[in-house]
C-alpha cells in the first residue's frame, strides 16, 4: 500500500460551488508523504473549502480526491473509515465541551477504531504528553486556555493515528501570546515527518516549516513552490500584492 511514489493526497480537477458561488475552480495537487504544505491566500480564496474537500466535510461538485490508494470521491468509499485516517484541526478547536480532556481523546478511538478503554487511555496519555498537557487529562475544555484547547484538539486528531493532518487556520482564533505554543506543537509534528496541509495566515511559520507554499486566489492555485521562492521571488503579480499586504502589516 505504501508504494513510495504514491502521493499521500492527490486532488484531480477539484471544483466546488455553493449555489451559484464557485469557490474552487479546478484544483490539481499532489502532496507527498512527509511533506508539509502551507496554503496561503486572501480570505475567500477557497483555502478552507479546499481542506474540507479533502476529508469530504464538503462534497466536491466535480473532480476526484485520493488519499493514498483510496479514492475518497468514489461512490462506494467508506467515508467514516477514511476520515479516521485524516486528522483535522479547526479554527474554533471544536473540543467536546461535555467531555473531559481524556474522554475527548478516547471517545472516537473506542467508537471508531474499536480500541479497548485501557488501550485508548494509553494512547490518549501518550498524545497529551506529546503536546505537553498530560497534567490536564481530567480538566474540562472550558477550563483551558485557547492555546491549550487547540493543543488538545491536535492530540485528539493524532490519537487516531492519521496518515495526514489538516490544519484549518488553527491559530487564527487565538490571542497573540498563545499562538506560539500551538505553532510549536505543529513544528514538532512537521519535524517528526507527519504529512501536513496547513491553511494559515502565519507567514513566518510557512516560511520556516513548509516544504512547499501554495498561494491561492479566486478558487485556483496561482503559484506554488519552495517558501524561499514564493516569499523571496514571487512570479505572479497577485502573489506579490498579497505578500506586500500581509508582510508589511
Amino acid at each position, binding site marked *: 500500500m505504501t508504494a513510495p511514489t504514491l502521493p499521500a493526497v492527490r486532488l484531480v480537477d477539484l471544483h466546488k460551488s455553493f449555489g451559484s458561488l464557485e469557490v474552487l475552480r479546478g484544483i490539481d495537487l499532489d502532496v507527498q508523504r512527509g511533506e508539509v504544505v502551507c496554503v496561503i491566500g486572501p480570505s475567500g480564496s477557497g483555502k478552507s473549502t479546499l481542506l474540507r474537500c479533502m*476529508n469530504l*466535510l464538503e462534497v466536491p461538485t466535480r473532480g476526484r480526491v485520493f488519499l493514498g490508494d483510496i479514492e475518497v470521491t468514489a461512490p462506494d468509499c467508506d467515508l*467514516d*473509515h*477514511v*476520515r*479516521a*485516517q*485524516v*486528522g*483535522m484541526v*479547526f479554527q*474554533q478547536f*471544536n*473540543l*467536546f*465541551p*461535555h467531555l473531559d480532556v481524556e474522554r475527548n481523546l478516547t*471517545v*472516537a478511538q473506542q*467508537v*471508531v*477504531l474499536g480500541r479497548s478503554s485501557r488501550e485508548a487511555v494509553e494512547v490518549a496519555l501518550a498524545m497529551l504528553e506529546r503536546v505537553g498537557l498530560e497534567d490536564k487529562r481530567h480538566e474540562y475544555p472550558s477550563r483551558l486556555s485557547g492555546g491549550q484547547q487547540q493543543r488538545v*484538539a491536535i492530540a*485528539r*486528531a493524532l490519537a*487516531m493515528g492519521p496518515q495526514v493532518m489538516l490544519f484549518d487556520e488553527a491559530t487564527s482564533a487565538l490571542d497573540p501570546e498563545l499562538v506560539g505554543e500551538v505553532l510549536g506543537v505543529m513544528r514538532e509534528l512537521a519535524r517528526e515527518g507527519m504529512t501536513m496541509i496547513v491553511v494559515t495566515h502565519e507567514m513566518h511559520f510557512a516560511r520556516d516549516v513548509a516544504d512547499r507554499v501554495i498561494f491561492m486566489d479566486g478558487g485556483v492555485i496561482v503559484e506554488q513552490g519552495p517558501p524561499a521562492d514564493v516569499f523571496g521571488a514571487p512570479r505572479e503579480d497577485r502573489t506579490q500584492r498579497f505578500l506586500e499586504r500581509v508582510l508589511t502589516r
Partner: protein
Amino acid sequence: MTAARVDTPQEPPPGGRRFRVSGDQAVRWTLYGGTLVLVVAVAFLVDWERLQSQMFRWDLVQAQFPGIVTQAARNTLIFTAFGFTGGLALGLVVALMRLSSVAPYRWAATVYVDVIRGLPALLLLIFIAFGLPIALGVRIPGTYGRGSVALAIVSSAYIAEVIRAGIEAVPKGQMEAARSLGMSRGQAMRRIVLPQAFRIIIPPMTNELVLLLKDTALISVIGVTDATKELTRFGRDGVVANANATPLVVAGLVYLALTIPMTRLAAYLERRAGASR
C-alpha cells in the same frame, strides 16, 4: 443611566422633569389608595362565612384524605410519567426526522408536528379514546393505556420541537469535529450532539413536564373507573357528591404542591445554565 445623573447638576434643574417626578408619585399614591379601597370593599362585601363553608369546609377537606393522595395524585403522576416517557421517545424520533437529510422524513415529521400542535389536546384525547375504536377498530386497552398514549402523542409534538431547537443550538463544529474523527452521523449524534442538546433543553423540558402534568386533567372526560381517577376527576366527583366546592379546592392545592416545585426547579436550572455559559 449613570451618565445622565452626572450631567444633571451642570444644567439648570429642568422644571419639566421635576413636575414629571411628582406626577409619577401622584399616580403611585392613587394606585395605593385605589387598591386599599378595593381590598376594604372586598373584605366587607364578600360573605366570608359562606365562602368558607362552600369552598373550604374543614370536615370535607379532611374527607379528601388519604384518597386524594394515594389514589388521585398517584394516578395523575402515573399518567404524567407514562405520557412523558412516551412523549420523549416519540419526540426524539420526530425531532431526528425533522433534521434528517431524507426529505420525506422531514415532510412527515413537519406534518405530524403541525397537525398535533394545531389541534386541541382534548379533541385528540377524545379521538383516541372514542374515535379510533369506531373508525379503525383500534382499541387501546385500559384507561391508563388510552390516557397515556393520548398524552404521549400530544406532548411528543411539543417535545420534538424543544429537542430540535436543542440540537440546532449545538454548534455545527461539534458534528464536524466528530465526523472528522471518523464517527458516523449516528454515532456523532448520540455521543456528541445529543448529550449537549439535552443539557441545553433541561429547563424548557421541565416546563413541558409541568404542562403535561396539568393536561392529565383532560383524562377526566374519557370515562375512568374509580381506580383510575386522577386529581381533577377526583375533585369534580367530590363536588358533585357533596354539592360543595371544597374537594376541587383541595385538588387544586395538590396540583400546586406538585407543579410549583417543578417550575421553581426549572427556573433554578435555567439560571444555572445561564451562569455556566
